[in-house]
């Protein structure tokens, strides 16, 4: 199924995949994610990631599994369920895939330690065929595996929690004095980034209001409260204002495997305007947003009620709709600001291979 990037397909109700096991734990996770994430309780990806990790920790700690393979299968089922239920949510999937990687790594470490070398893990890395999609066989029963996995997951969780701070620390190195920064919509990462940078630098931020969510208003409020000179503009004024802008800094919902980003509606226009004026576009993103999803990701429609002006009674024959996400192609992105370092879109694939195990690319 190949679609043009950014093409919008009307959402159809997919049947839940048959792979979804009837394990109560799995159902619990699925229900939890759907109820909370869809209904918007978790507004930020950070909270989604943290909650997902919390639940995965419970699964690892409480579920009945003896060998690594059993655990991997359970995790995989959870991932499949989430993907089936919420195809637009990438962060919980990312977390599942990350934990799968952790499990495999820990298993191999334990195994290598007991076997007296790291040989097996390397051979697994080398000879596993991602196309088959089979998870590596971790059939040995290793008693300390559970604890080690939990320990590694705790580390990972700490990394997720610190990511915002780590990103904001790079603000000073990215922004110089008297710059004009443009951003669009509300993103806590960008807010933290700019606020931190404003302690040492004096700059001016232009915020686009980001219809139809209009969360740019909130962003503008937060920024001016933080003492940053802020100007709120309409989305249609992005292009005219861009000629004065030095940098565009936006957040994203997820980073796709090709280096593009899937983010709020309006980002594509913003990015192409930045490209037109050769303004660098930075994307503040922690590593947990790096997703294995390719750019053919199907977009979804939101209800047109968000768009119709309140006083206008449009005739029913008029087709009104608004997409949920925008896709920004990698050529319009200059660089990603992650918790570790800045990486170019072309380097995302390498980051992905570090984060996730090749066999888990396809859940």
């Amino acid at each position: 199924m190949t679609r043009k990037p950014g093409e919008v397909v009307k959402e159809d109700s997919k049947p839940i995949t048959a792979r979804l096991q009837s394990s109560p734990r799995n159902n619990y996770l699925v229900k939890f994610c759907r109820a909370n994430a869809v209904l918007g309780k978790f507004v930020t990806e950070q909270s989604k990631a943290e909650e997902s990790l919390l639940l995965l920790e419970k699964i690892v700690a409480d579920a009945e599994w003896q060998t690594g393979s059993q655990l991997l299968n359970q995790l995989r089922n959870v991932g499949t369920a989430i993907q089936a239920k919420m195809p637009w949510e990438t962060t919980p999937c990312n977390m599942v895939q990350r934990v799968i990687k952790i499990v495999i790594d820990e298993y191999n470490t334990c195994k290598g330690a007991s076997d007296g070398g790291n040989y097996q893990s390397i051979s697994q890395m080398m000879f596993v065929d991602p196309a088959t999609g089979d998870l590596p066989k971790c059939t040995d029963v290793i008693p300390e595996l559970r604890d080690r996995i939990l320990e590694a997951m705790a580390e990972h969780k700490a990394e997720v929690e610190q990511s915002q701070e780590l990103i904001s620390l790079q603000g000073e190195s990215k922004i110089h004095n008297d710059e004009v920064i443009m951003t669009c919509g509300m993103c806590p990462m960008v807010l933290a980034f700019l606020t931190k940078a404003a302690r040492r630098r004096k700059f001016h931020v232009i915020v686009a209001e980001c219809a139809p969510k209009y969360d740019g208003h909130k962003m503008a409020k937060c920024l001016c409260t933080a003492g940053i000179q802020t100007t709120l503009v309409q989305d249609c004024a992005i292009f005219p204002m861009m000629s004065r802008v030095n940098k565009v800094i936006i957040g994203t919902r997820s980073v796709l495997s090709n280096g593009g980003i899937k983010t709020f509606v309006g980002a594509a226009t913003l990015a192409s305007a930045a490209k037109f004026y050769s303004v660098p576009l930075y994307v503040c993103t922690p590593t947990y947003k790096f997703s294995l999803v390719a750019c053919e990701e199907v977009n979804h429609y939101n209800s047109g009620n968000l768009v119709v002006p309140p006083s206008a009674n449009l005739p029913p024959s008029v087709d009104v709709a608004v997409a949920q996400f925008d896709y920004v192609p990698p050529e319009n992105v200059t660089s990603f600001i992650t918790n570790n370092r800045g990486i170019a879109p072309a380097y995302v694939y390498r980051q992905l291979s570090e984060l996730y195990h090749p066999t888990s690319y396809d859940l």
Partner: protein
Amino acid sequence: MGYDTYVLPNSRTGSAHRRHGSACKYQAHMRAPGIPVNEGNPRHKRTGKAAKNRSSQTENQPDSELQCSPDGPPVERPVSAACLLKTSAEKCPDRPLKVANSQQGSPVTGGKGKESPKNSAPQRKGLNPEGKPAKRTQSKGSRPGTPGRAKGQPSSSPTINAQVPQSSPLAASVVADATASTKQVLEKSAERTEPRQANFSTTCPSSSENKQGKMSDQKLASLCQLLENIVLQHGGKEMSSGGTKPVSVPQQNQNTATKVSPVAKPASETSSSKGKGTEEHPGAEKSREEIEMERKARKEAKKAGKKKGGDQSKAKEGEGVEDGSGKSKADLKRERREKQEAQRQAKALAKAQQEAEKQKKSQPQSQKIIREEAKKAPQTKKFADGRRFRDKKSVEKDSSRRIPLLGHLTPYTSHPPSLPVNSDSIHPAIRTLGQKMKDRVVDGSTARVIATLAALKRFINDYRTPESCDLSRDLAEKIVPNVAHLHACRPLAIAMDNAVRFLKHKINSIEPNVPEAQAKDLLRTAIDEYVCDNINLASSTIATHGAQLLKDGDVILTFGYSALVCDMVEAARNGSSCMNVSVVVADSPFPPTGSDMVKQLAAMGVPTYYRLITDVTHIMHKVTKVVVEAESVMMNGAVQGMCGTAGLALAAATHDTPFIVLCHTYKFSNNDLTDSLVVNELGDANGIVNCPSREYCDLLTDWKDTENLNVVRLVYDVTPAALVTVLVTEQSVLPTSAVPVIIRRVFLPGTREHESAAWPPQVTGVWSDLGRRLTWHTTRHRPRRHWPSSTERSPIVM
């Protein structure tokens, strides 16, 4: 076509003027409604629902634009200055002042408090041709104008009738003073002053209004300052007076309280009904009384000091508010022995104090309020004059709020520009139009041009040449402040600038020996021809040209409301080819003009899509052509359009979709722009702040008072020439590089024959597949920088 309504031969103008003499310049425009006005061709209106109602009215009665029918469209009426004269608008909404009444009758002039004294000026001079008393004309102005309007009654034009009752010159001056205030400021100040007004109405004694009539505002202000200082003193003492204070203090308090309270009721009544003028007045009067009272209180305090011992117990009794009456009776006895006059006063005090007690029981907070008032006093200057003062201040703050990067642009202000009082330099039609442009009733460059020319035509109609002057020289001078007023209401669009320049050119070219009537006829004909040729005929030609670029099954993307694009779609559907065209309307959330466009297209039966401007990338792959209307085209080929057009052009360029711009050639500009910020206009940002989102709609309502925050609404943007595929004008279909040639033709008509026929490329045939032919024009990621050489250009020339 709606353009045909603009045929305006005029007959009765000259004689009507002469009858009234030269001093009464603008009476003539009140003549019978046969005058073809048609300002704002309805087809070109880029307006909301209200404006549409209005335009439908206009077609039937071309004159109704300038008259004020109460059943007209719900034009947002700014709070008139006269409304301030009431203590609060809510208190007596059905009992407005006469000024307010006359202004409410006219939705257009309602916001301009300044108009009233101005307009009343000629009538006060006795120039009202029928000699009717002002009140009668006012009542006429407020009645439904259209059906019942008697022909040939000069005074029935309500724009002139807005008039201050001459019996209250103070009110008139107040109205004049309040002109600089904005709508918001007025509302704000009304809110702010309301509690204090109420407060004063309880504390100020009422007095005769006649004395106060001549009092100047400054004097009032100073007096009121004095009064408030006194109130402050008393309040302060009251606050500091504990139970152990000497007798003098409670006595003094009693005096003030007793003096103040008896008149409270009448004062509040009069002030609520009579408004500001009367309120200022008691304030001043009271200050005198207060001074006297204070002196007396000092005397009494001295006496009390002598009789310390005896009065100590009484003073303790008197500290409580309830015991105060008994204590003052004791004082009375003592005073009677000494002086008879003091006795009389003390009796009054006693009575008053009883009332004060009652009042204190009913309003236990009144003292508190006075104290708060006293605290506020140093900051808030004076309440009578202070309102004006604060208005000025906030206006200054508004205008001084310079936006970073955009400091060169005139900040948007919601209040009408200040006008010189009692000056007739600005024609009522211009004033009306200015207000309409400010309120965006007349919006869109084409509508604004038509309306401006119609208003200027009326101005020319009513113009009388002074005996010592040439018509051309004098008229050219007199037209300047009118245009400047329009500019002050809303910065002129480039098209308007061109139209005005054209008119000035016509005026200047009138020979001195041409008689006035003939010269005016010349000018009127020139205006009519200009509108007919450059706008009406040109629009239909552009629509035909544009329709030739379409083919069956095309999906057109357009932005906002555009009459030209509507015409083009209509021409494509109704033409010989009967093409099936569907239209995607991209719209910006504010102002949502696209919804009007969608409605109009859906009514025509065109398959229509409505999308946000941010969301166009998702539908771009379906779109085969992007068609927009330009506000102006620059000499370097850059296209000035409504803000958002450039974003659309960029989306079109990235999707290899032809970007077609429709533009009248009279809108071409000799300027060259490379970005959108150098020449632009700032719109009303409050519309952005009140966004449709429920969550954030009131988050930034106080953005003007928020530090570090600006909200900017740009009205125009400039699309670089590289993003424009083709330009459709009534002369031909052109590449953007051909704009200078058109400009030469339009602005220097004499040079036409010197142009070579080969350039610019004249496109004659139908372009069946514009997108394929011109794909090279919009290379995907590398916009074309230069116009290609002549060999490369050949594919365009067919």
